[in-house]
């Protein structure tokens, strides 16, 4: 699934896998509940990773994708009585379309760098305000799904089954990420990140690649939003489109290692562990976890520019093999 470069990375990944499997045996509802939340955020982080990690297109408004997935599914289920699985697919598709649309609009006008971050942020805000105002989105009171446990409704009474379901989805999205990474599309995207002018000179249609990346990212982000909805059976405008969602989307990949397969997941898990630990230690001060995230983020940017995966990569590197056409 990923070419490991060092003992450090191997250890890091083994620790994460051990933790994720360990959750089955600890049988603590607190750990389980906390990890379930972290897994949903990990999917969102993997979404950000497609554009921000591979493509260097840093979005500050990934909530727009997450929220669109969640709202699409919720509206279909609540208002139209559509099956949860169908609504899930529709949520993913709608989020992909919104991602592609934002990309098409922004990149058509050559929006780049921090301007792109601002454009995405603006979209998320506009969507949040709309969701809070319209009737079909439930306005200020949000949308509530009916409790109806059962696989056909994507509602799991048993937490262990739910956990396994989410774990499987994270693995699936990681596999898709690995596929992107080693595909031609991924190579083009990295070329865009590294030097867009050079990429264009080589005949890469950079506009198309960037729009496509936004659509793929949208699909992943929409999936994360739908998963949240299925877990809590409730969304409102700030849960779906709030800026904290956008922050959670980018912070995991940056800390874990943007543009890698494991980084977003490792970063998200690590961050949530720290946040959770601080919460219990300092008795639930609201918003504290975000202050802490900011500190961790600043340290990460300063001391590990390539994230945890990059840092671990420097510990005990394997001998470099001669690879002719990597």
């Amino acid at each position: 699934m990923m070419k490991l470069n060092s003992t450090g990375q191997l250890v890091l990944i083994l620790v994460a896998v051990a933790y994720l499997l360990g959750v089955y045996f600890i049988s603590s509802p607190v750990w389980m509940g906390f990890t379930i939340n972290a897994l949903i955020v990990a999917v969102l982080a993997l979404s950000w990773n497609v554009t921000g990690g591979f493509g260097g297109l840093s979005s500050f408004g990934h909530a727009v994708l997450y929220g669109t997935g969640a709202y699409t599914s919720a509206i279909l289920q609540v208002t139209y009585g559509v099956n949860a699985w169908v609504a899930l697919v529709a949520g993913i598709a709608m989020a992909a379309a919104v991602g592609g649309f934002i990309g098409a609009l922004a990149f058509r006008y050559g929006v780049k760098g921090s301007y792109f971050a601002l454009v995405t942020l603006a979209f998320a805000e506009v969507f949040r305000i709309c969701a809070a105002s319209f009737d079909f989105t439930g306005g200020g009171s949000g949308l509530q799904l009916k409790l109806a446990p059962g696989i056909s409704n994507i509602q799991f009474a048993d937490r262990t089954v739910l956990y396994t379901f989410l774990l499987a989805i994270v693995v699936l999205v990681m596999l898709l990420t690995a596929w992107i990474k080693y595909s031609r599309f991924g190579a083009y995207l990295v070329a865009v990140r590294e030097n867009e002018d050079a990429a264009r000179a080589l005949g890469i249609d950079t506009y198309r690649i960037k729009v496509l990346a936004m659509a793929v990212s949208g699909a992943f982000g929409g999936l994360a939003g739908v998963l949240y909805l299925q877990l809590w059976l409730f969304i409102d405008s700030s849960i779906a489109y709030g800026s904290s969602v956008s922050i959670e989307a980018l912070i995991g990949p940056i800390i874990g290692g943007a543009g890698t397969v494991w980084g977003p997941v490792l970063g998200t898990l690590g961050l949530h562990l720290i946040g959770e630990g601080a919460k219990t230690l300092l008795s639930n001060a609201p918003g504290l976890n975000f202050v802490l995230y900011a500190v961790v983020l600043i340290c990460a940017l300063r001391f590990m520019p390539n994230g945890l995966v990059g840092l671990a990569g420097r510990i005990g590197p394997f001998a470099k093999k001669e690879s002719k056409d990597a």
Partner: protein
Amino acid sequence: MLEISGVRAGYGSMTVLQGVDMSIKAGEIVALLGSNGVGKTTLNNVISGFIRPNAGTLTFKGVPLTGKKPADIVALGIAHVPEGRKIFPNLSVAENLSLGAFRRAGANRKQNFERICAIFPKLRQRLNQSAGTLSGGEQQMLAIGRGLMSEPELLILDEPSLGLSPIMVEEMFNLITKINAEGVAILLVEQNVMQSLAVAGRAYVIEQGRFVMEGAAADLISDKQLRQAYLGM
């Protein structure tokens, strides 16, 4: 092979190219000479589709280029190595090269890889090194090698010797002849007038968006006006 006629192009309301005609035949080296800011890079960008001309026509092997995207122009067989070593600094040399082969000649990737390593032995020794750590000259070779990965019939080199030491400049011109010997036509934009004329078959001299001289390189070398304007002798 490449026919340009009456091309006018610029940026916004500013016209840089004031109507240029040029032709490049298969397998020849054509030098494009001129001082800074006269429109050499602009002409390259028009050929490779980055800038749409306001007037005029361009055809490559009889196919009109106007309105085509850069990606399609690469696919037709024109590779543009832009000014200023535009490599992918954090990717390895091998990864940089393989990115050149996606649009065209993907099936011959292995062969071209070998061919390019044979032309640039320095790159072969550094295949796994990240491209940003190469010396300036090596980066320029990488940029050219990457352009060659698409098996172009016409290679546009925009100031390949810029910023290189005299010895490297010498080597660069040798390499250009070597690439040309394999049958690739080259449009060579250069400030090194004498060396360019030595390797080129024909040359165009551009001033303020217009060609003021053109002809066989051998004739231009001895041209009094040119020597005065560009060499001060």
